[in-house]
């Protein structure tokens, strides 16, 4: 590819939105409008002839590189298949605290864990493992969190009382926790 085509390719790749020709002209002060048009044509042709997984498209007066439609389904499937999300240690400890001490507010969790848990609460909430179950008494009436039916379902528990009591934990844990 020509140097200008390479520059345009990098810029289109790095831009968060379709880039109008005017803005592409700003990339190289010495490049004429005709040169930019030729370089864009060169990229488009290169993608088509060499058989790339992407293509150059003009949308709403701007240019962008897009994944070819025929691959999108496989990509979405692969994302789902390959990323069994694991909860971070932070999320796990927060979930554990809420399970055993609900209803529980953010401030109390942060006091116990010693770090801020805003984003952790958000992701647990998005996964449906916790939900807001009420408001606390204190200043600002803080949100209180509790576990959800999805939480029970996830761990195949019929009700919360099926979790071992805190004084029984040591026993339950000796059952080689890693082995599952």
């Amino acid at each position, binding site marked *: 590819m020509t140097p200008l085509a390479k520059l345009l390719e990098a810029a289109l790749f790095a831009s*968060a939105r379709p880039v109008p020709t005017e803005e592409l002209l700003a990339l190289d002060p010495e490049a004429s409008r005709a040169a930019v048009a030729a370089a864009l044509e060169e990229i488009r042709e290169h993608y088509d002839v060499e058989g790339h997984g992407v293509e150059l498209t003009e949308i709403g007066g701007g240019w962008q590189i897009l994944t070819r439609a025929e691959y999108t389904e496989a990509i*979405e499937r692969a994302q*789902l298949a390959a990323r069994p999300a*694991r909860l971070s240690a932070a999320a796990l400890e927060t979930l554990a605290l809420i399970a055993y001490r609900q209803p529980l507010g953010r401030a109390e969790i942060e006091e116990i864990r010693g770090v801020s848990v805003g984003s952790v609460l958000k992701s647990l909430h998005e996964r449906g493992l916790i939900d807001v179950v009420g408001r606390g008494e204190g200043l600002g009436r803080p949100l209180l969190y509790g576990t959800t039916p999805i939480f029970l379902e996830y761990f195949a528990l019929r009700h919360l009382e*099926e*979790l*071992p009591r805190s004084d029984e934990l*040591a026993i339950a844990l000796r059952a080689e926790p*890693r082995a599952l």
Partner: protein
Amino acid sequence: MMEVPPTAGAELPGPASFVVELTDFSGPLDLLLTLIREEQVDIYDIPIARVAEQFLQRIRTLQLNEAADYLEMAARLLRIKAQLLLPRPEGDEGWDDPRAELVRRLLEYQQMREVVDVLERAGEERRNRFARAYLPQAAAPPESPLALSLSELLAAVDRILRVTKDPGVHDVVPRAIDVPGAIGVIRALLALRAHARWTDLVTRGAEPWQVLSTLLGLLEMAKLGECRVQQPRPFANVEITRDAASEAA
């Protein structure tokens, strides 16, 4: 080996922002190391009196706002200076150089700064390359399934319990006997593995009510067909097996 490379302070060309960061000093050790380099003195034989004076002067002029950290270092330097003035015992043997600890810390800090240089270069290299920014599938991709086991959750509870003075988890009321509780434990254990032993359930030093609850719970579960209980010979460890039938259910 014994010399600090005198060029060390000067090896920072590049953009002007580096200079700004350097004059800010990331802490008292950073300042101290800079002084030692500027003065080109041997890190293993620091002229404490001179360096301490420079250090004090510098923190005065810079009006460093995290003064506490810097003042602590200043006090340390002055203490070492005083110790060096004390008469040494006969002969030099058995004399601990009061600067030794400081030298050790400086070397450790210097090693870390070396890593910082590595990270800084790597970070700069990465900063200069853009990742894909335009993602047409603006809709959030479907949530991937969560990989999490009950035992991991319990381990997290356990971590918190061991760590926190008063996590306020489930107030425990001593009961005369607690069969449902014991059944809960046994179920949790059997959920984790197919075989267990009596000694997994009853710890050494368990209270009599705990032993009794576990025994009754176990018998109850055997009756319900949730597990099988076997004792090969008298006083042998009791073997508990998850019942295949209930497992299938």
